[in-house]
């Protein structure tokens, strides 16, 4: 068990180090996230009441789009230089190695995204309860995005065109978006958000349990 934990952290450390060595890879999706958020006030005008109503929705949709762009980086470089094949040949379960890589992706992409989203909400002076709901939903939701995303990336890795990835992934993201937006709306109205939070947490647990296994299976198929 201890050995498995060690391997998990070695892979995690490796992926984090690779990301920091190649900063563009993980900064570009975040830049995209910020730019798209800025586009909305330009399109809808600077009417602050309207914007306040839309902000949390804008943040969530932009987060989904930015995730689509960032996901490829989970496996692409490994696929190109062949190290993913080396990983499948080790005596450790591929599920474990894959979950380390997904965790790394969430740390590189999800955590900065949450921070930027909160900063945006703060600058646009969202009410406190909305900010709290936004924070909790992003905290529970972004890992799900990375987990489900990893499956589709594993399926489409090495295929031409990134469009296919977005086509496959966005329908699968809809429940997360719906529950998060319900929570944010209820919070804005001053109502309890416990039900939605529990449901998001449930989806997260389900994704954490099944997604690494599925991703490993998908990778094996692609490499066979």
């Amino acid at each position, binding site marked *: 068990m201890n050995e498995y934990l060690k391997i998990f952290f070695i892979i995690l450390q490796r992926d984090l180090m690779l990301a920091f060595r190649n900063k563009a890879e993980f900064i570009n999706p975040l830049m995209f996230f910020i730019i798209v958020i800025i586009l909305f006030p330009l399109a809808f005008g600077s009417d602050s009441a309207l914007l306040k109503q839309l902000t949390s929705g804008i943040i969530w949709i932009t987060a989904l789009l930015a995730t689509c762009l960032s996901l490829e980086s989970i496996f692409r470089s490994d696929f190109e230089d062949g190290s993913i094949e080396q990983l499948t040949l080790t005596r450790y379960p591929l599920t474990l190695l894959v979950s380390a890589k997904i965790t790394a992706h969430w740390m590189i992409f999800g955590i900065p995204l949450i921070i930027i989203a909160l900063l945006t909400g703060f600058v646009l002076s969202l009410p406190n309860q909305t900010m709290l709901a936004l924070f909790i939903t992003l905290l529970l939701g972004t890992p799900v995005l990375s987990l489900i995303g990893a499956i*589709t990336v594993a399926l489409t890795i090495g*295929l031409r065109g990134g469009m296919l990835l977005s086509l496959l992934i966005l329908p699968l993201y809809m*429940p997360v978006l*719906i529950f998060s937006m319900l929570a944010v709306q209820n919070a804005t109205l001053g109502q309890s958000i416990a039900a939605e939070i529990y449901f998001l947490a449930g989806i997260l647990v*389900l994704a954490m349990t099944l997604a690494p296994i599925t991703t490993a299976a998908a990778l094996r*198929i692609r490499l066979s």
Partner: protein
Amino acid sequence: MTMYKTLHRWFHQFASPKYFYDISHAISRWLTIICIICFIAGLYGGLVLAPADYQQGDSFRIMYVHVPAAWMSLFIYMVMAISGGIGLIWHIKLAEIVAKSSAPIGATFTFLALVTGSIWGKPMWGTWWVWDARLTSELILLFLYLGYIALQSAFEDRRVAARAGAILALVGMVNIPIIHYSVEWWSTLHQGPTVTKLDKPSIHLSMLIPLLFMTVAFKTFYATSLLIRVRTEILKYECNTSWVKQLLRDYKNVTN
């Protein structure tokens, strides 16, 4: 144990492409006959015999296409995902072919359900489209089908395509109840179920019977068109085997 063995042997014989190709021709002929009879009975009963609805007038009759199509859209997705899973686990070629051939039919039924629902919605709700729970989840289902087809066509190797598609279909199947209920709680306008209630259907018998006929007609139509597609796919899969070559030679001799 012996029963299990018999079943096992039967299963493998049935799943062998050549055997399936031979028997499916007869099956599909019978299914076509059942399909046509049920279609005629269902359409006559639904459009002529059934009385007009006291609230919706004659426009409720679109139900006889809309409801079976919507049922089929979910049913075919289940077939696709389960047979994909069988192909993934036991490497049964026939299951892969069934999954692959089901996708376009399922997508078509989903599209049909959406279009007929929209046509029904215009006189009833006064609008072609609302962001209602049922409509939205059906639309998402259409995108799941299209994503599956897109993924299938992205691979050159048929076996890899089938297995990758199976994984996507299974992930989608886990997601379908979640999508369904999430959308349900998010917003709803669509009328509740009237047939599948456990105690007693709240639909009158004279309206229900044509609907059941139409359901059987749609099911057999799916089975027939699936068999045609599967037979074509089998020929493509097995084009290098001796029995397909023999079949082609026989066919050439007959046409000459």
